[in-house]
């Protein structure tokens, strides 16, 4: 009998994969002249700056402190002199508080171990691991940027049974996680073991889509020497990288509406996060750099770069062969969930998994037609929602009714807008309504 590959059941779409940078090994991007480090690179309260204008900082130095439980530290990614604390435009399109540093040399904090040796023994206790991760300012590197230490602090009365590692990378074009799994596999494995120890779980499952066969076979061969880790190949389907879809695909369990994965005993972390955890715990290296895919159909040299946080996007594009003349749009993230930036001077932040350059011919939205009631949006919605209905309700501002229709379950994957033959602005209305519904829910709680 054929071995049927696992995947999630409800909905999903198959956008063209376009993983053109998959064969490019990760290159270290040269240091830029200036970095712009936003104070809010995570979900939760912005960090509070600890440095003043004119201060000399080292790479890996804490420059902004977390201001609450759901918040994250920010470290300097370079050595140099603080030029200003003025707000800088980030990928949200708004100017937000940030620290601008003029780069001078490459001095690191002495506590950071920058040697390439692999350290396998995990000496710290579970509590110390979580503390160290919080100090290093690690957030979910898959793009959601939720502070990792919060996910590792399991609420009382709940118990984690299983760790799921997200190596799916279901967004078209992006290849940063793919390269990471091939090139930093040993560190990744140790990182996963650290996460397992922090959560006190015996088992970790790595989910990888079969469009990355080299990563699957490589990690499968490695997993034998690391206890408790299993690699599970998955069918290619977007949005399998969504937390809830991945859990469904791997374990068959379903996260209840409005609930979190921990409610069913699962914690999900991205492969990038696991690597950052390894570096923080074993090497005392805070989160100051990440792998970013720079890609696009007309880009001269689609690449994967190891980039210091705060590097302007323009530097990445220049290293990948410069902005093509026919560029219509530059997107931070992948084509499905990424966001067009309004300037290429915005900095790379902890959540920037890729930079996608889209040619002018493909960058325009098609004009909105009329709904023909084909229900394609309903059949592709991975959360089992009815996007056409939410869209209509959003237009009429029927927010309390939208809450009943579970609009807050929407994770904004964009499958409905991708599939709609009439090019309706489905996700636009749903996204805006989620803000309004969120307000209603919060008001009721207070």
């Amino acid at each position, binding site marked *: 009998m054929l071995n049927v590959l696992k995947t999630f059941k409800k909905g999903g779409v198959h956008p063209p994969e376009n993983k053109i940078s998959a064969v490019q090994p990760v290159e270290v991007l040269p240091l830029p002249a200036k970095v712009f480090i936003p104070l809010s690179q995570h979900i939760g309260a912005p960090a509070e700056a600890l440095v003043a204008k004119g201060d000399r900082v080292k790479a890996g130095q804490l420059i902004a402190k977390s201001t609450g439980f759901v918040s994250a530290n920010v470290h300097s990614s370079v050595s140099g002199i603080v030029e200003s604390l003025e707000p800088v*435009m980030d990928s949200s*399109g*708004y100017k937000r508080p940030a620290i601008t540093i003029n780069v001078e040399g490459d001095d690191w904090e002495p506590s950071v171990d920058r040697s390439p040796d692999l350290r396998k023994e995990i000496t710290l206790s579970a509590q110390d691991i979580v503390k160290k991760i919080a100090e290093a300012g690690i957030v979910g590197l898959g793009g959601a940027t939720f502070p990792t230490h919060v996910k590792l602090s399991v609420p009382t009365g709940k118990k984690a049974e299983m760790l799921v590692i997200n190596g799916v990378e279901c967004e078209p074009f992006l290849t940063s996680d793919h390269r990471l799994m091939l090139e930093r596999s040993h560190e990744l494995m140790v990182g996963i073991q650290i996460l397992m120890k922090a959560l006190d779980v015996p088992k970790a499952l790595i989910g990888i889509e079969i469009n990355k066969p080299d990563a699957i076979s490589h990690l499968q061969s490695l997993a034998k020497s690391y206890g408790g880790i299993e690699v599970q190949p998955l069918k290619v389907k977007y949005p399998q990288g969504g937390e809830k879809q991945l859990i469904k695909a791997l374990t068959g369990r379903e996260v209840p509406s409005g609930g979190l994965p921990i409610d069913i005993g699962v914690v999900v972390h991205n492969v990038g996060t696991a690597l950052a955890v390894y570096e923080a715990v074993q090497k005392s290296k805070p989160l100051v750099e990440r792998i970013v895919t720079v890609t696009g159909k007309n880009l001269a040299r689609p690449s994967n770069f190891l980039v210091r946080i705060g590097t302007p996007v323009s530097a990445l594009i220049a290293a990948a062969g410069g902005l093509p003349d026919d560029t219509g749009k530059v997107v931070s993230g992948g084509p499905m969930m990424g966001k067009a930036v309004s*300037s290429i001077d915005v900095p790379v932040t902890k959540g920037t998994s890729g930079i996608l350059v889209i040619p002018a011919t493909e960058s325009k939205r098609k004009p909105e037609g009329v709904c023909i009631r084909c229900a394609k949006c309903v059949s592709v919605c991975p959360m089992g929602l009815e996007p056409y209905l939410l869209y209509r309700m959003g237009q009429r501002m029927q927010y309390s009714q939208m809450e009943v229709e579970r609009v807050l379950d929407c994770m904004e994957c964009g499958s409905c807008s991708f599939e709609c033959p009439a090019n309706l602005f489905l996700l636009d209305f749903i996204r*805006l309504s989620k803000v309004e519904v969120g307000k209603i829910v919060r008001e009721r709680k207070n």
Partner: protein
Amino acid sequence: MSSVLTTSILMLTILGVVLAVILYVVAQKFKVEEDPRIDEVEAMLPGANCGGCGYPGCRGLADALVKSDDISSIFCPVGGNETMSKVATLLGRAVEAKDPQIAVVRCSGSPKNRKRVVDYNGISSCRFASTLYSGDTGCQFGCLGLGDCVAVCKFDAIYIDPVSLLPVIDEEKCTACGACVKACPKLIIELRKKGPKGKRIFVSCMNTDKGGVARKYCSVACIGCFKCVKVCPYEAITLENNLAYIDANKCKLCRKCVEECPTDSILEVNFPPRKPKVEEQAQNAVTS
């Protein structure tokens, strides 16, 4: 045949009479006593149902006017002082005359003054655009020009000027209901005192960036230079976060700040044209 006809006519008649009696009895028993003055007041109100007063429509306002003892805090912006005094006489209560107001757009960032650097082609609505980015120019405070204020105006008093791409308020039609103020995600529309003969002066900018940054992206941005604050003889101008604000109640319309402003971000409306200055007159004489 005829017996069927008479029976059915008879049955229906009896049924109708019985039901009418039931309806009458029920209507009398559960009659809602309503102050007849509510109807009278409602008839006096403009009937625009715009919600500018803060109550759900004109009926809601009439209800509130009749029921509250002190009506000085309630005001119908559309009807204005005239309507309010009529209502007050009917209800036998006192009402203060308020200065008529008008909506003003506090942004002068036309394409001439503010270069477009981004091409937006999402939904043509400011509400959506403002969640995606700060605007298609370098200024993140100014008008997006997609016309949410136009769509929400019930009096057809706003239109987007095709040249400046900014909303323009029709002074004849604007009732100061405030719907546009609430609709604008950039908060650039303000209700201000209409002023004698419509004369008014205001800072047409919302940019709180530092002077250099603001000026880099918009030639008519307020740069927070304090010149207007210093020149104002009535202390009507305050400056906070690099942005000047003119208090309409203190302003005596002397127009000194308008002359002083280096970036022309203070606007004067409905003033007669100025006499050319002496030097300019001399220059004109030379050229002619």
